């Protein structure tokens, strides 16, 4: 086994094998790779990170492919982390986002990685953002995280991006699905995909009406609504421009600092949570569980002891 620290030169040089290997170890949260991830962190912070969410079938993967293709033409290097749910029964997953992105696969300027939510083990946010760090350090300067907009974990992942896109689509039922899923509020930009379909204008109209009723998160940034069709290519360039406008806004207004602090805060907490969970699983579980079950310790006391307080 190659030590993770020895993978760093390859990662910094953008060698895909090394990038891929370190992502695997980072995702698993191996202790062995922690010093390497710490060293690599100094080389991150250059990429613009975009989170894309929306209900299954809303067209996210297809949109990611269209955006990546357009951004490639502008010379950007694209990293993609596509997250799919794990089976709650077996813990395994079938990840199919690449099906929509196959045309990108021969391009050395694009790196696509699929990641499973890993069910109850948690740590998705931690794992996904560690993967983003590896891609960032490897020189991918536009990084897209795709995740299904259901479940707390997944929403947290997209919130931890610089620009969050929420995708809605016509033909998936009467309501704006994002409202039902409670993810409308997290959008910096709304995308209505599949605008080649006849009822798309209605979806855009409904969405705009809903947004007028809402107070935006940031009074100086009204989340715009962009219609796209991955089929005809309509709206893709406009969306890319809008993403750039949001990026410029964050930097010119200084709001980027708030974002970065929020992301840092969330990452520290997530990582700490995972460390505690691991410590619990590895060492003390049996001991504490028995004592709490037999009422010799309260859950609070056991937790305190676990943390060494």
């Amino acid at each position: 086994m190659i030590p993770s620290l020895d993978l760093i030169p390859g990662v910094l040089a953008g060698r895909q094998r090394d990038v891929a290997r370190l992502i695997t170890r980072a995702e698993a949260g191996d202790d062995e790779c922690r010093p390497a991830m710490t060293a690599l962190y100094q080389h991150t912070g250059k990429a613009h990170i975009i989170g894309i969410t929306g209900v299954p079938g809303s067209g996210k993967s297809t949109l990611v492919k269209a955006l990546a293709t357009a951004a490639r033409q502008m010379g950007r290097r694209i990293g993609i982390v596509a997250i799919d749910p794990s089976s709650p029964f077996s813990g395994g997953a079938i990840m199919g986002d690449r099906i929509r992105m196959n045309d990108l696969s021969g391009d050395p300027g694009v790196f696509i990685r699929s990641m499973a939510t890993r069910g109850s083990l948690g740590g998705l946010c931690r794992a996904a953002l560690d993967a983003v760090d590896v891609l960032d350090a490897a020189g991918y300067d536009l990084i897209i995280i795709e995740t299904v907009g259901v479940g707390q974990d997944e929403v947290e992942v997209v919130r931890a991006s610089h620009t969050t896109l929420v995708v809605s689509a016509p033909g998936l039922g009467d309501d704006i699905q994002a409202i039902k899923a409670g993810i409308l509020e997290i959008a910096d930009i709304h995308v209505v995909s599949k605008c080649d379909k006849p009822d798309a204008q209605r979806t855009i109209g409904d969405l705009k009406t809903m947004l007028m009723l809402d107070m935006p998160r940031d009074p100086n940034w009204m989340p715009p609504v962009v219609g796209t069709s991955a089929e005809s290519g309509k709206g893709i360039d406009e969306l890319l421009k809008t993403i750039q406008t949001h990026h410029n806004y964050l930097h010119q207004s200084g709001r980027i600092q708030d974002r970065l602090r929020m992301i840092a805060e969330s990452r520290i907490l997530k990582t700490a949570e995972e460390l505690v969970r691991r410590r619990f699983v590895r060492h003390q579980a049996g001991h504490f569980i028995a004592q709490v079950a037999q009422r010799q310790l309260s859950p609070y006391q056991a937790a305190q002891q676990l943390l060494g307080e």
Partner: protein
Amino acid sequence: MSSPIRVLIAKVGLDGHDRGVKVVARILRDAGMDVIYTGLHRSSEDVVNAAIQEDVDVIGVSMLSGAHMTHFPRILNLLKEKDAADIIVIGGGVIPDADAATLKNMGVADLFLQDTPPDTIVNSVRTLVEARGKR
């Protein structure tokens, strides 16, 4: 904490049936593995590029179109070229016995006919990955 076995399932060649590969994908998922499915009509190059980015332990290629004697060697060669020969290649589909023997000699780790029981596939993948060891 050990991560699940990662498998890339690909359908190479011209035939348009993906029921078989989808069944295999589900079998492996139900055995707790992470399966990346890349869809129909992939080229050998697509498969190898994707397998490297996904850092999979195993590539499972399904082929019904009879082009196995070109695609499997190409995949094995590309993996060697790209310094990724530690990725295990298995296959499934319709492959005559004589070809199967040749392919195994070339380095295809295992081949499954269409009615292979799920347990056989799962056990083979697990055994192969274990035998290769940590990398």
